[in-house]
């Protein structure tokens, strides 16, 4: 299925090899694209990753189960909680621990809040990539209000380390629910504004409609998941299809598009932010305020998880995020594999979609796929 575009003869002088990144403002994070251009049209693209490779999967093999809990959140920097939840979930499943219901509600809220924060940052990125820096200023600030909530709830802005196997690390602070509602109201107002200045903006519309189309038949070979897939018309969402946490307790809609181009993908995400706010409001209404939030663990200093293997996935902002854990009954994991959506979106898919686009649109295209390099290379 992978075939280079038309044979490229660099010595002909017709083509130019151009590196975009890793030090480049038009790249989402620290990765690079090796573009071959003809005029300002891209005729071939090769992705280079690994600039952020830290070897998490190896590091995790020599840390105990509780120690790993601190490290997983660093795998996807802007969205740590999905890692925390999934790691907790795989360990809980293999060690037969069940988190209390209150913890499950808090986790649901945590994940949705993170999704909103992550989408806000992405929204700023989309704005910036198409010349709308105001949106970047606004959304990152509103994301900061969300980080304030995280700070209050978990004790840290970025790396929360809050969802621990067995539950969560603390109850919600006094008066947290009210402040959370206020932040959500603010974000909702912001989204209305963004809809007016970005999604109804003629420049944005012109540039993004028809850019980087994902057709339905690309979904399976390229393993496309999440909003990128839903924008192509598939109503597939892990939260709906294999419900986890409290997602089958709350009401929300799976947003789908028709033709997955850059505009459509952005639109789907915008609507999902509204759905996220809707979910969070329900969670705040229904979350129990008493009862345990942690199931006691065995002594974590020499915690042995029985032999087994499992795979658990969750719907993160970019699609299917999953942890595959293999244990051998010792204090250490035998193997952990982190399945991140950026892996498939940013490499194989990006290489295909970049072909035929304009150099100026590469940045916007990358942003529209919403990928995180640290999660690709781990």
């Amino acid at each position, binding site marked *: 299925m992978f075939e280079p575009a038309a044979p490229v003869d660099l010595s002909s002088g017709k083509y130019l090899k151009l590196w975009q990144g890793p*030090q480049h403002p038009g790249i989402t994070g*620290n990765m690079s694209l090796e573009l071959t251009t003809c005029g300002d049209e891209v005729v071939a693209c090769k992705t280079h990753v690994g600039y952020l490779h*830290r*070897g998490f999967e*190896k590091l995790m093999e020599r840390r105990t189960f509780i120690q790993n809990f601190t490290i997983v959140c660093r795998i996807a920097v802007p969205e740590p909680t999905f890692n925390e939840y999934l790691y907790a979930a795989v360990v809980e499943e293999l060690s037969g621990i069940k988190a209390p219901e209150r913890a499950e509600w808090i986790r649901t809220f945590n994940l949705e809040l993170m999704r909103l924060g992550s989408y806000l940052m992405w929204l700023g990125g989309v704005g910036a990539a198409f010349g709308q820096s105001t949106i970047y*200023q606004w959304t*990152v600030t509103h994301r900061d209000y969300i980080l304030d909530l995280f700070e209050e709830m978990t004790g840290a*802005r*970025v790396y929360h380390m809050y969802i621990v196997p067995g539950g969560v690390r603390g109850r919600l602070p006094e008066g947290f629910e009210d402040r959370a509602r206020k932040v959500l109201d603010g974000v909702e107002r912001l989204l209305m504004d963004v809809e007016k200045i970005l999604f109804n903006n003629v420049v944005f519309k012109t540039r993004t409609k028809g850019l980087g189309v994902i057709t339905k038949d690309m979904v399976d070979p390229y393993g496309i998941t999440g909003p990128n897939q839903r924008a192509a018309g598939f109503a597939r969402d892990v939260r709906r299809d294999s419900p986890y946490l409290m997602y089958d307790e709350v009401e929300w809609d799976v947003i789908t598009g028709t033709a997955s181009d850059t505009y459509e993908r952005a639109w789907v995400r915008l609507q999902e932010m509204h759905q996220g706010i809707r979910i969070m409001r329900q969670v705040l209404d229904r979350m129990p305020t008493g009862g345990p939030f942690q199931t006691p663990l065995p002594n974590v200093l020499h915690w042995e998880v029985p032999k087994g293997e499992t795979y658990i996935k969750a719907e993160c902002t970019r699609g299917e995020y999953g942890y595959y854990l293999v244990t051998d009954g010792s204090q250490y994991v035998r193997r952990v594999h982190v399945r991140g959506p950026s892996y498939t979106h940013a490499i194989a898919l990006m290489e295909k979609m970049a072909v035929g686009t304009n150099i100026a649109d590469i940045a916007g295209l990358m942003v529209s796929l919403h990928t995180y390099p640290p999660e690709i290379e781990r």
Partner: protein
Amino acid sequence: MKPNQSALGPLMNEGLPPEDRDLFSNARPVLYEPYPVEVVEKFVNWVRANSLWLLAFGTGCGAVEINPLMTARYDAYRMGVQTRPTPRQASVFLIGGYASVKTLKRIIRSYEQMQGPKFVVCLGICPINGGMYWDSYNTVNQFDLYLPVDLYITGCMPRPEVLMAGVLELKKKIMEGRADGANRYVENFDWYKANQKRVIKNWNMPDYNW
């Protein structure tokens, strides 16, 4: 004790294939000499301190807190800080946490391309002593072995407020004329190069990428 750079001879560019060596400069970096009149130097330092242009190279996870720093809520622009897309225009290199070997090579390249006077600020714990990734096979543990560092900001993540505090501290240091990292790089160029080449195994670039 400043070694005479010209006495050390031209750079060999041995990492490059022989046919490419001539294509690149073999000159060594040169020391920055302050203005002979002290008042002028002081004034120039004041100017430099108040227009810090950051190189927008998100080298590690610390980059995630630069977004808030540069946007409305914290608004570092008011302190004379702004991000620049290219090393040629930038004067401050923020090392955003851990540096993988692959990125380190690009960091060195970008750093050497920056125009002097230039300053390096390290965010987070990883450049100090390995941090989270102290036992990783792909991240360096002590950043100051590879490039001269002017300031360290500890934290994981350092919050935007600390980054701001760091910027203020850097300003102070520049105004006092103590931010001499670039000169240390020149003076100990061979030592830095040896350290760099010890970890970067495919050195397919010139020895000095100015």
